């Protein structure tokens, strides 16, 4: 039940149904808490393995209570303790092996709980007046089964606004229909699209090391690089589609986590569209505070742009680093941070050379946008080798063909991504331009029923009739 399986969806729909037996916030909260505990129990099997997670939750709540009671001078220490315990439980490799717990324990969801707890602590540490968060509300927020496994990372105010509303948000046939369509779409993405992209990637990985003609190796390298970002998008965004729809059926709006990321025309824009809640969280709690500190330290206005570049690098380096505990993720972080920093420098450089107006005009030229989109995809695909592969696999892949051949492969990826994504954008815009009195035909409920039925049929055929196993949700391991 920790993936986008039919069981998970059935569980979520059953909870949503029971939750709607009454509009009372007490009832809805009781159902959500019970469902989340049942969900946790189904995942953990043995309650003993949940103790470290329970300890972390208790630590977080104790810290919250201390800060609420005015221990603001110890705020930094409290924060440091929470962060250290998280790192310790996650067994980051830079800590000595001897200090870790050696009996197996339950880690799933810890990273997302960590973000929520930290968010509560930081917000409580602000001088603004905050209302007290009770233990029940705290547990509901941190253990909510719709966001437990892989997010999205929701702010507490947004959660409380819907969950504890005296008059919950409307839930009529149209909204229910939209959610069902979204669940079908998400299920299709995870169980069909992601499965197919994963199949392409794994086969290409096996093929690239085989004694085959170099033309086939180049083709394998191309598929290997291109398939993973598409797989991850289908895998992660499909899961997010499902949980957002399930939560909405329980009258809670979760934040969007993706906004057509491959339409981004720059790497900076990409991170506004990919795993939005994570990048927003880090921008809020790392980028802006760091930039403020640096600007106070180096008040020169000429230094400000470079301080921004540096802050971007640190923020996105941390995003990369967060994904894993091994040295591969350090490189992944450097490549993410480097990508946004170079992107920012490029923008600053062009603005300086062409003037702001000139640069803005350039950024509106379709060809420039198309090539930017292709380059963004290519860079993202390149960085992902340090995301899914071990150093041994990276070595195997990059030595399978020569350096010049790799350059050719990346050039081909850039060109193909430019053309394919431009065609995709054009097709989408064209289809959306076909309108009726209610808006675009493509987003009408009739069109949605057509493609939801088609996608649902294909997904059920793949999962039930053909018993094709799809990979688990990648982000559940983080």
């Amino acid at each position: 039940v920790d993936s986008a399986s039919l069981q998970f969806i059935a569980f979520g729909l059953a909870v949503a149904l029971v939750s709607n037996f009454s509009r009372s916030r007490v009832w809805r909260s009781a159902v959500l808490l019970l469902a989340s505990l049942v969900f946790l129990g189904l995942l953990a099997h043995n309650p003993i393995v949940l103790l470290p997670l329970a300890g972390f939750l208790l630590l977080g709540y104790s810290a919250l209570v201390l800060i609420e009671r005015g221990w603001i001078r110890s705020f930094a220490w409290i924060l440091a303790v929470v962060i250290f315990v998280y790192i310790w439980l996650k067994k980051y490799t830079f800590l000595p092996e001897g200090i870790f717990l050696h009996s197996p324990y339950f880690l799933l969801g810890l990273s997302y709980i960590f973000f929520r707890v930290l968010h509560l602590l930081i917000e409580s540490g602000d001088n603004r007046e905050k209302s007290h968060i009770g233990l029940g509300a705290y547990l509901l927020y941190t253990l909510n089964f719709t966001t437990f496994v892989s997010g999205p990372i929701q702010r507490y105010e947004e959660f409380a606004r819907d969950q504890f509303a005296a008059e919950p948000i409307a839930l009529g046939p149209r909204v229910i229909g939209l959610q069902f369509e979204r669940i079908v779409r998400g299920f299709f993405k995870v169980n069909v699209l992601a499965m197919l992209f994963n199949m392409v990637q794994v086969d290409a990985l096996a093929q690239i090391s085989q004694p085959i003609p170099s033309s086939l190796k180049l083709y394998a390298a191309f598929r290997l690089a291109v398939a993973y970002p598409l797989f991850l998008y289908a895998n992660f965004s499909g899961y997010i589609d499902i949980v957002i729809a399930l939560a909405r059926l329980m009258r809670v709006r979760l934040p969007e986590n993706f906004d057509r990321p491959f339409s981004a025309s720059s790497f900076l824009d990409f991170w506004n569209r990919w795993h939005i809640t994570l990048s927003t969280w880090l921008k809020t709690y790392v980028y802006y505070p760091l930039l403020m500190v640096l600007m106070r330290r180096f008040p020169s206005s000429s230094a400000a742009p470079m301080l921004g570049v540096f802050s971007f690098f640190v923020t996105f380096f941390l995003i990369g680093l967060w994904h894993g505990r091994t040295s591969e993720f350090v490189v992944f972080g450097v490549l993410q941070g480097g990508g946004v920093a170079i992107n920012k420098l490029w923008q600053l450089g062009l603005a300086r050379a062409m003037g702001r107006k000139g640069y803005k005009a350039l950024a509106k030229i379709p060809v420039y946008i198309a090539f930017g989109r292709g380059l963004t995809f290519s860079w993202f695909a390149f960085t992902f080798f340090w995301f899914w592969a071990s150093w041994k696999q990276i070595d195997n892949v990059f030595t399978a063909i020569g350096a010049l051949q790799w350059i050719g492969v990346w050039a081909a990826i850039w060109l193909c991504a430019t053309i394919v994504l431009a065609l995709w954008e054009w097709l989408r815009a064209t289809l959306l331009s076909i309108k009726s009195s209610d808006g675009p035909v493509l987003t009408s409920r009739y069109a949605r029923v057509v493609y939801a039925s088609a996608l649902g049929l294909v997904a059920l055929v793949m999962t039930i009739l053909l018993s094709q196993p799809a990979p688990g949700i990648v982000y559940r391991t983080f």
Partner: protein
Amino acid sequence: MNDSNEVSLENKKEAKLPRRDWILLPMISLLTIALLAGSTELIAHYMSSGSTTDIADCMVKNDPQHGARGIPNCVCWGKTLETEEVEYRLNSHGFRTGMEWGPKEPGVYRIVMIGSSIAMGYRVARNKMFAELLPGEISKRTGRKVDLYNKGVMWGTPHSITLRFDDVLAAEPDSILWVLSETDIKEASALLPLQEPRMSHAEPANALDRRFGSLRRFRMALATESIPDAIGDMLKNTGARVLLQHYLNESQSQYLKSYLSGQEEAGFLRAEPSAEWMTHLHEFDYYVGEIEARARAAGVPLVVVLVPDRAQAAMISMGEWPAGYDPYKLGEEVRTIVVSHGGTYIDILPDFRNIPNPEQYYLPVDGHPNAEGHAIIAGLLARELTSGAIPELRVHPPAQQSTLEQRR
């Protein structure tokens, strides 16, 4: 259509759904499903059309005294989504072999091959079967004239072989080559194929039934099964399913993942055979004992080979497999059984380590070796048979290149 658009759509004022939509939307959904399923099935049917018979039409399948056997001089054809039309032309004794039974020519070494569908070259043209290629391969290596009388038949299970073994010995073999698959071991004691709901010859199919085989099977299944079971069977037998499965099974990774997730199907690949598989092996042991004893009494050596299943070949080639599995395990079990009764076992499984993506030499859904697979098997068998498995055919290295080695 994007994720953020959802929010704006939801934020529109929640108006009542027009009454007509409560009828219209389900109708649109049903129509979409019907159109999609129907059109896919039609495409699949178009791709596999051209043959209304199969090897089953050339078989006697209801004789428990002798097991399944070929109808003498029968000719039938089979075409699937995965293969071109294949002719099955049986000789006057009901075997798919180019030679008629007759006394051996002087100086000719005669191998009589027994086995089931793989031995009889199911889904492969006769001139591409390893049974046809093998004599040439061996002659090339040994310089001896070799003929091979192929007595492999569909559903030629170990039990049914014991019932016909006198016929095998009557063919004057110098040695008997028994080609096995995991299915032969799993169905060691079976005599007749499982009766599928199928229209008999006495009840000719109408034009619509012939065009839509799934509907025909569904109609027949309804007579013996519950409606959900019949629907399940019909869906499993649709052309669309086969078409999709074919493309998915072409991927080594997805095929293996899917295959190993089917507990029952992959039971023979388990490192620790289940109780069910132990029973199959005990039954197989019994029939091997009987066949080997009768061959020995006739003074004919028995040589046994296990041809790997498609998934087994892929796992061996990849060199890694999930914990709890062992693609070599069944071969070791068969070797132990055969050797314990005094027979000779030749092991071609390790050779698949050196064949990249060997699953491409099998039909992705059907699972039988294709023409290239047969050529590879012929090369491997020739090498093993001339390396001492049959002393009369032994050649000393350097041996001539086999088909497999030439392929590399």
